[in-house]
């Protein structure tokens, strides 16, 4: 605990600091200074995800989660970005992963961002899919927040089949799976 008698005075600036020059035009007082101008700027970008993410996103449209394999170590990356970050070589072999895994880390979000954020508070989860080397992000629902724990088993909840698209939003959220927890120590290095 910090001392209750902590000094709470705010240190003033040192004397003689360099100051802004005063305007030399009569009538142009400093308190009339323009503080802000608005310059609306908009640039339109047409993004493309790249080859590996395209393969992955097409999989999602078919309700399949397709990871990609490190050509040297065999680690499966999902979502794939086209490269094994360890060896710097392209991942080309696709591996279909189950839509279930283990919660490897999480936090409880009380201020959400973006149009897809669920009502707060909600659990932002890292899910290590069975067979994957790294975790992916999702929202965990259908469980009281105080019961959420590292190592618990979870499963994807998909949108209805007619809503499936090549998008992360094809997975609505993750829900608990009634299976024994995985030891947290086994998840180290795979968050």
């Amino acid at each position: 605990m910090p001392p209750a008698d902590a000094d709470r005075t705010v240190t003033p600036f040192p004397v003689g600091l360099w100051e802004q020059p005063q305007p030399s035009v009569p009538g142009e007082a400093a308190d009339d200074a323009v503080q802000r101008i608005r310059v609306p700027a908009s640039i339109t970008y047409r993004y493309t995800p790249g080859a590996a993410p395209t393969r992955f996103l097409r999989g999602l449209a078919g309700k399949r989660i397709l990871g990609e394999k490190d050509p040297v170590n065999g680690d499966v990356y999902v979502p794939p970005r086209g490269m094994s970050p360890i060896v710097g070589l392209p991942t080309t072999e696709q591996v279909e992963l189950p839509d279930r895994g283990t919660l490897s880390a999480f936090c409880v979000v009380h201020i959400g961002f973006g149009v897809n954020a669920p009502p707060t508070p909600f659990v932002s989860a890292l899910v290590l899919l069975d067979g994957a080397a790294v975790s992916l992000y999702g929202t965990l629902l259908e469980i009281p927040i105080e019961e959420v724990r590292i190592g618990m088993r979870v499963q994807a909840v998909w949108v209805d089949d007619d809503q499936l698209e090549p998008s992360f939003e094809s997975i609505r959220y993750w829900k608990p799976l009634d299976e024994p927890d995985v030891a947290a120590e086994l998840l180290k290095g795979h968050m």
Partner: protein
Amino acid sequence: MAPTRDVAIVSFAQTTHRRAVPELNEVELIQPVIREALDAIGATISDIGFTCSGSSDYLAGQAFSFVMTLDAVGAYPPIQESHVEMDGAWALYEAWLKIQSGHADTALVYGYSKASPGDLPRVLSRQLDPYYYGPLWPDSVALAGLQARAMIDAGIIDEAEMAAIAHRSREAARGNPHAQLQGSAPIDELLAAPYLAEPLRRHDCAPITDGGAAVVLAAGDRAREWSKRPAWIRGIDHRIDSHNFGARDLTTSPSTELAAQKAGVAGGPVDVAELHAPFTHQEKILTAALGLSDDTVINPSGGALAANPMMGAGLIRLGEVFKRIESGEANRGVAHATSGHLLQQNLVAVLEGER
């Protein structure tokens, strides 16, 4: 104590440049190039002491866009690494400093961009003074047009000479398998084309390119081990001019002249010069600022007029000079890179083969 280590370019690779590569993301685009540069000398990332890259968030349209590209390097276990929001030529400069400081003996340098997702001339207008120039949205071609006009009015160049530069560059690019534009229509045909931003016509402008390049640097005997004829960096310097275009003589490039002097361009004959001139008239400004004579072969690769991947095109100039020294085609060459509008910032390097 001045820099004392002998540092050379020993390997170079570049993409086959294209107007747009929508099927690949940046990491997929640059990885084969990095791999090619390392494979050419039989090296892996564990042989590299320092890695430095150049790219731009505004071109990618993403904050921290370089982070993902690190996946192409294979940076685990962790590496000594840095990034500049500049052309890869400046990444090479940082790597050269690291080697001169004794922090590394070898370096991997890469620069890349995809210009295709955005409207490049419009994106580049975001480099301008946000109070006075930016709100007017002058694009990069229009600004270059002002410069060309100033040169024509000063009697330094005319449209026919500009067309001849375009013609020579793109004809030279026929010998460059990586070039985006190869071959040119005859000069009179070029001059009959409509203006894009008078006095500039399409042929006066560099193409818009998705692509990148990678270079490996090494010091001393390591360089001799990796290359049969390394291109030693005998001098390298960069300087910047004012952004206040109205206060500049746009027909000259004092920063190039100064960088050339510091790099020691005049210290010997220049067999080849690769100049980063995205517009035809700028080649003439650079030739004058560098003090090059008619004996120097200029832009045998076709230069930026044949392919201009932003953040890579300057680095490619260094690589192209290296190639010609390594092959024995040239003994001493000058490479130049530019950044910003109207040749505002310039880097000059003198490369030389083993004496």
